[in-house]
């Protein structure tokens, strides 16, 4: 077997849901363990490091606000890649991945919005403003809710997969808008201070806990995503087996 065909067969192995379930069963305990460890270190650092000379203790809100905001966008990007997988390659797990990710994305977007609001009140003097960054993230939250409702409203899974995939890809336009909103418009929300071309603009004292918490949140997301994908595969198998049982029962009558 040539190297290319070996690589292709390795990739299509992952497309096999049974193979995925076996892999998930092995990976989930490890991922959960490493996630818990990262959270322990991250939370310790979040409260052990010093406060900011201007923001005081509220800088600690950053350690949960920034990772959840990052996840809200990463989750949608994963859903968009899955949508391409559904429409172009008809990968059997692509739709499962998109459907499983949507509630997680909604949860982390809500977390980013609420912690941002709790940070805004003491620092800006307001819980909420309709500036470009806050509004575009709020739209992202509504899009997650819409996608969850849509995929559950259509009974036929393959039809639901295609319709959702198209809507996910249309909605992807919002992701660069969120990322660059603070540069394109005049916003109350500050501009990027971690992912910048000229390097992070915040002190290493704050960067360390932020980095560990970002890893912890990302690992938590992937652990939950694999668990939710596994649940969705099981759900579909149960539905298929029940249909089969009903057909067998009606044949016996």
């Amino acid at each position, binding site marked *: 077997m040539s190297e290319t065909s070996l690589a292709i067969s390795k990739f299509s192995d992952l497309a096999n849901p049974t193979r995925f379930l076996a892999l998930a069963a092995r990976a989930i305990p490890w991922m959960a363990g490493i996630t818990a460890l990262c959270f322990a270190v991250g939370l310790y650092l979040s409260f052990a490091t010093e406060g900011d000379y201007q923001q005081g203790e509220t800088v600690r809100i950053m350690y949960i606000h920034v990772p959840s905001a990052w996840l809200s966008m990463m989750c949608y990007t994963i859903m968009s890649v899955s949508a391409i997988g559904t429409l172009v390659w008809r990968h059997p797990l692509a739709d499962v991945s998109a459907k499983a990710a949507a509630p*997680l994305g909604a949860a982390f977007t809500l977390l980013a919005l609420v912690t941002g609001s709790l*940070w805004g009140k003491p620092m800006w003097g307001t819980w909420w403003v309709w500036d470009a960054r806050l509004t575009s993230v709020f739209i992202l939250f509504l899009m997650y809710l819409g996608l969850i409702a849509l995929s559950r409203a259509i009974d036929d899974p393959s039809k639901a997969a295609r319709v959702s995939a198209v809507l996910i890809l249309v909605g992807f336009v919002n992701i660069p808008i969120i990322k660059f909103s603070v540069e394109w418009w005049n916003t109350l929300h500050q501009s990027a201070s971690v992912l910048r071309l000229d390097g992070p603009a915040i002190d290493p004292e704050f960067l360390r806990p932020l980095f560990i918490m970002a890893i912890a949140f990302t690992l938590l997301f992937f652990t939950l995503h694999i668990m939710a994908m596994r649940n969705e595969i099981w759900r579909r198998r149960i539905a298929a087996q029940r249909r089969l049982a009903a057909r067998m029962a009606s044949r016996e009558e």
Partner: protein
Amino acid sequence: MTHAFYVYASYGFAALVTIAVTVWTWADGRARRRELAALEAAGIRRRSARARDGE
């Protein structure tokens, strides 16, 4: 601590959301596993599983 309410409220809400999502995902998995076991007990299996048993 200054602004303790805002800091603790943020961490409290973050704990609530992450724990709720984790418990929900875990409970969903447990319920599905039970349903699969019930189907198995009723003799309803996937074709691939039946073939392996030599039925």
